[in-house]
């Protein structure tokens, strides 16, 4: 019974990661937009939903006590807007600028989470976030299973919606832009407009994942959203194969299994005073793994067909576009 409960807990976490990875797959896999600050968007979602749904708290702003679903919708809206703004600022420039800016977004979100006590509770975070089926908390197994059901349903909906989107005319434009920007533009598609949309939708999905996580654990703090989160999700997407939604989900479960498994292993093998060092070694190993996969099997387990070499010209084309456009 214990094992079943842990299995449900494990899968719930893995599926929440899958949701972030699905958002990243829309941004990177489908559209070729590089987001190294996704932890920031996840955090925005978590904090937005927490603020909207927690009971009133005199120590900080809000605690509006709204229903959980409103919190999730709010998280998606705010996350989407934040991503759209980031995209609008940088998508007319070289692709690296988006990477640097998203990195900056994550740094600033982390700063706000830590320092804007009135809004985010500072380093102590926000507690008492309402949990769906919180009344079942006395029977952990039932509680874990019902949470798993909720998260599975949300992930499934997101998965089906993204599958549909990527086959729709909209998704085809994104793929066309990724593969051959000049051809797509010559067909009258505005590259920047479509990219901002894709980036915003991806950001909204990440924010939703953050909100789900917040309501699953009932407590959030700035430490949940360090760069290591961004890194984990990237490894998940690369292992699964960018461009494939199924790969994103399976890659997330697989990498989370490796991560949680090696974490358990280090906690058994190493004495408590060496735990922090062992954890650092674990991260280093996963970092090396990312680089090795990029070198040996850049398309991951379920990746899209290899990109054509034309892709490499994109930087130059983008530069040409910005100089003619402004």
């Amino acid at each position: 019974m214990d094992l079943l409960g842990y299995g449900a807990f494990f899968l719930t976490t893995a599926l929440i990661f899958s949701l972030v990875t699905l958002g990243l797959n829309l941004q990177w896999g489908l559209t070729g937009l590089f987001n190294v600050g996704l932890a920031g968007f996840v955090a925005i979602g978590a904090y937005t939903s927490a603020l909207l749904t927690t009971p009133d708290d005199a120590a900080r702003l809000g605690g509006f006590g709204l229903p959980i679903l409103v919190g999730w919708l709010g998280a998606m809206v705010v996350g989407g807007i934040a991503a759209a703004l980031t995209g609008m600022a940088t998508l007319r420039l070289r692709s690296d600028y988006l990477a640097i800016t998203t990195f900056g977004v994550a740094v600033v979100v982390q700063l706000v989470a830590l320092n804007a006590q009135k809004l985010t509770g500072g380093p102590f975070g926000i507690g008492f976030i309402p949990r769906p089926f919180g009344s079942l908390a006395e029977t952990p197994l039932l509680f874990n299973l019902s949470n798993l059901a909720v998260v599975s349903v949300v992930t499934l909906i997101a998965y089906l919606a993204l599958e549909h989107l990527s086959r729709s005319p909209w998704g085809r434009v994104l793929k066309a832009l990724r593969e051959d920007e000049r051809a797509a533009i010559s067909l009258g598609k505005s590259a920047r407009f479509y990219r901002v949309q894709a980036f915003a939708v991806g950001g909204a999905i990440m924010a939703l994942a953050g909100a789900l996580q917040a309501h699953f654990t009932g407590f959030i703090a700035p430490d949940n959203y360090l760069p290591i989160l961004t890194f984990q999700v990237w490894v998940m997407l690369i292992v699964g194969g960018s461009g494939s939604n199924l790969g994103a989900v399976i890659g997330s479960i697989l990498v989370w299994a490796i991560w949680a498994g090696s974490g358990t292993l280090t906690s058994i093998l190493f004495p408590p005073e060496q735990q922090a060092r062992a954890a650092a070694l674990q991260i280093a190993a996963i970092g090396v793994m990312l680089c090795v996969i990029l070198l040996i099997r850049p398309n991951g387990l379920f990746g899209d067909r290899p990109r054509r070499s034309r892709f490499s010209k994109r930087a130059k084309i983008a530069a040409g576009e910005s100089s003619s456009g402004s």
Partner: protein
Amino acid sequence: MSLQFVVDGLLTGSMIGLGAIGVTLTYSILRFSNFAHGDFMAWGTYATLAVVSAIGAMVGKVAPIGPLSFGWPLIVALIVGMAFTALLALLLDKVLFARLRSQGQAIIVVMASFGASMALRSLLEFTFTSRPTYFSRAIQIAMPVGFGIRITPDQIALLLLTAVLVLGVHLLMTRTQTGRSMQALSQNAALARIVGIDVASVVRVTWVIGGALACVAGVMIGILVQIRPFMGFDMLLPMFAAAILGGIGSIPGAVLGGLIIGLAEAGAVQLIGAEWRAAVSFIILMAVLFVRPIGLFGVRER
């Protein structure tokens, strides 16, 4: 508001600027933003620290030079550290970046640098733990120099060192054949190859300069602040912001950008509070991207 922020800002700006030179060179010549650059800083600093300790173990305690907090061992160690960091950068290029570059996917290289950055930093944390260390625990008395400004001998020495290094790199870039080859490659890679520029050697020089300066910047942080595995990663955003503010590919731009960001950070610390310091680079970065994305001294890419 006290004018002390000018000295603090110039010092932070020197660290950012020295790091940003490496960022701007890799960006303009190898055409990718290297997220592992901050970790070159940290590795260089820990290497320098290791050499200082080794010298200390061999020859015993060495008296510091004049009023400075360090003696000749640190200077020797810094040179060893610079060489080490340059080699580290070359090695990482050989096993990782060069291979991915040859596949022609620019943004994959950026991602690989992100992975490498995580791995490098965690290895430092594994070896040295995340507890901060110091080159010297001695406390220096700051001398008043007028206008309410105080400065320590270490700070003067490091500002001078920065000035010398920046001048040196600037002369290298503008007065030597190597430097001109680097500029040519950054402005038009195809044309540079046609006129027979040895791309591989230019790439090597780029990594050597970037790595060595990253080490100096890291050691400056180590002397004036503290040594931590995250010291370089925390400098990443200011360095990127400085490189973009100055204009990609411009050495004077990177240094000026670094000084502007350093001064803005020091001013913000006085006016708003130290906890918001890291947001300054982001605000400047966004302002540049909206108003003048090619930066102060940038040229449009052809």
